[in-house]
């Protein structure tokens, strides 16, 4: 097996990866298997599971299973887009600050500190209030919340790595900063960054879910796991499936991503272990 899939050798890595694949398959392929139109009522509101609606109906009488199968794409897609954007911005800032060894570093980092001073959800709500509820605002807002933290972690890892001989050898060869960072620095800071990435992605999901839940993100009648929880939570005694199943999907995805991220970081970490481990018997 190729080295990049080595993380699947660990049990938690394989389980985590399996969970992620399952949830993603549900989200991506779900709409093709949905028995009903997710927006059309199929029966009495809040009826329990039946042959027609295996998970019952929601507060408007729509099929919970169909809404579940349709509702994954938006929350996962937005969270993924926000996380990728956050990493693009955060890693650039962190690498530039950590590698520069000039005034660029304090200038970037103090800006980041200011950003970190805002309470995240409040920041997002103010942004939505100002710019209106749109998907772009939501994604950019979540990315803006995440980027400062990412840049701090990346900067610290970069600082440590950039004093190493292989980085300095690259500088002494006169290579461009981009080349040195891409070849010598970036591959060697991935382990700490990846552990963090799992957490960040789940945090993005949770923020987007929260905003959707508050009714400020995706609007009804769209189907969305977070929106489903929000809409049906008052009626949890009448049809608990309408709340618990979408909640379980979000929870599963969170667990799966973190198990996978940790396993990848561990498998990367393995090639980090210097041969000094040999001197266990030194």
């Amino acid at each position, binding site marked *: 097996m190729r080295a990049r899939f080595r993380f699947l050798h660990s049990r938690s890595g394989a389980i985590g990866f399996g969970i992620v694949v399952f949830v993603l398959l549900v989200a991506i392929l779900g709409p093709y298997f949905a028995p009903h139109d997710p927006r059309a009522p199929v029966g009495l509101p809040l009826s329990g599971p039946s042959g027609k609606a295996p998970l019952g109906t929601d507060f408007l009488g729509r099929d919970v299973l169909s809404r579940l199968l349709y509702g994954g794409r938006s929350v996962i897609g937005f969270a993924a887009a926000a996380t990728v954007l956050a990493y693009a911005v955060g890693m650039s800032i962190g690498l530039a600050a950590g590698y520069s060894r000039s005034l660029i570093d304090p200038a970037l980092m103090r800006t980041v500190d200011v950003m970190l001073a805002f309470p995240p959800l409040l920041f997002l709500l103010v942004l939505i209030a100002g710019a209106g509820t749109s998907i772009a605002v939501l994604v950019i807002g979540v990315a803006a919340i995440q980027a400062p933290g990412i840049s701090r972690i990346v900067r610290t890892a970069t600082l440590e790595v950039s004093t190493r001989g292989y980085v300095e050898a690259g*500088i002494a060869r006169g290579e461009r900063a981009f080349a040195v960072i891409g070849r010598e620095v970036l591959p060697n800071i991935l382990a700490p960054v990846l552990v963090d990435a799992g957490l960040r992605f789940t945090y993005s999901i949770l923020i987007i879910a929260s905003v959707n839940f508050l009714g400020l993100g995706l609007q009804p009648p769209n189907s969305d796991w977070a929106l489903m929880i929000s809409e049906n939570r008052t009626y949890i005694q009448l049809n608990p499936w309408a709340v618990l199943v979408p909640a379980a999907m979000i929870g599963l995805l969170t667990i799966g991503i973190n198990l996978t991220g940790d396993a990848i970081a561990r498998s990367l970490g393995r090639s980090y272990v210097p041969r000094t481990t040999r001197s266990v018997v030194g």
Partner: protein
Amino acid sequence: MSAVQTAPVIRVDDLSIRLQTGEPVVAGVSFEVLPGEIVGLVGESGSGKTTTALSLLGYTRPGVVIDGGTVEVGGESVIDRDGRALRGLRGKTVSYVPQDPGGALNPSMRIGGAIMDVLRAHRAGAGSDESIRSALERVELGSDPRFAHRYPHQLSGGQQQRVTIAMACVCDPPVAVLDEPTTGLDVLTQDRILAELRRLRDEDGMAMVYVTHDLAVVAQMADRIIVMYAGRIVENGPAAEVIERPRHPYTRALVEAIPDFRHPRALRGIGGVSVGVGDWPDGCAFAPRCQHQQLRCHEALPVLEETVPGHHVRCMRWMELDLHDRDLPVGRASRAAAAAPPLLAVSGLEARYRSNRSGHPAVAAVSFTVEPGRCVALVGESGSGKTTIGRCIAGLHVPAAGTIAFDGAAVAGHARQRPLEVRRRIQIVFQNPFESLNPRQRVRSSIVRPLRILRRLSRAEAEREVGELLERVQLPARLGDRFPVELSGGERQRVAIARALAAQPDLLICDEVTSALDVSVQAAVLELLQELQRELHLSMLFITHNLGVVACVADTVLVLDQGRLCETGAVGDVLASPSHDYTRRLLAAAPCLPDGAV
């Protein structure tokens, strides 16, 4: 030691230690230590010396278990004790001084608090400011009463190590285990620590087990030397005996590997690779590397035999081999000073660090030249600015003032602003072999990079040259497909040298290239560098704190004290008759073998 029979304070009998997976780490080790005796435990990495020493504290590293035998310290067995009984023993009966004091002291705890902890653990109710002061006084840190309130990061490396020694001595244990306590410290600090330890032994009669890979240090300190190889004792005898008349070919090779400034001679590394755990051969473990091996050496394990009373050796041929009178290569012929114009001319160099606000430059008014084909050594303590000078020349640090002229033309401070030819012709090899290769890249691609960038070779041409370069540094070409993790420290440093040679440089800057290596590996790397210098007509700037190394490799020496040159001259002159006080102190502090050794 007097002839009066005293009961040994340490008694180790037939100790065997193995990994949990079954591979033996230490096998059949037996020795005794008398009260007040200093015993040096010597060997290369992987010889089991640290594992043996730690067993005296009843400690094994995770994944390692004591398999059999007895270890008695102060008359009590330390094996098979539970946690509580072990805690009562450690610190009180046997204490430990670690290799890296910076990592061993709790950074969030004041010095006084750390010492107090040891006292509280062993003396009910005790632990006054007074006892902390007297503990610090014993290691000569008592002059400032506020010292106990400092944090470890406020101390120098030498002071930190003295604090750990104070912690080890505070409960007056009869035995202390010292694990390479001066590795990583510069010579002057090392000398002070060693004197400290000798004084503690003389005053308190503390027995010490001193673990090290450096025979020169142990030659100064120990009463007896135990040499280990592949988990077994190969030689055990009085220090002077072992150094001057080694009976085992391995001990002999270790002695030959020590660079000694008083008797400069060509160094000879030990060929082959040290045996790792799990690959012990059937016969004598050293046989594959031994110059005197015979067929029978590979067939049966030699026993530890007594040569003269008190001197044991594990070699089948000890009786027939006369290791002492073998011809040794004498000092290399000194090269005539070249008449050619200098390759490198540094003048008025000054360098500063932004983080240092005291206003003192790290390097000030340094001027020197390097002639083609010559080796110039830059010597000084840590913090003397020697590495900074190397970095300035390599284009990694921009000087605050002064000029660096290479082959007659001044060069820019930043490597990127220098022409390709200059970047190609100046190459640097870094200190730490564990950090100088990108762990994510195969050896091959680390070497291909300079070929592509600096020599503009095509990918195919570069790939072809990798094998040649690896062979040039005496590594098998197949190593190119390995990752750095799979290599030993010595192998990595050779790869780093190959990476520098790939550029076909004229000037090679070697920044403490051997300070992280075992003495035997150091000898082999120095041997290689000298050979390369001869064959490729390289000029070298050799940065080091080891005067023995200087005597072996350099033509000219520059002594650096707090960023300024205090003495320069031909190696022979400076080492034989130093004119500057600082040089004299460095020379006096440098560990070296007793006169009879070589």
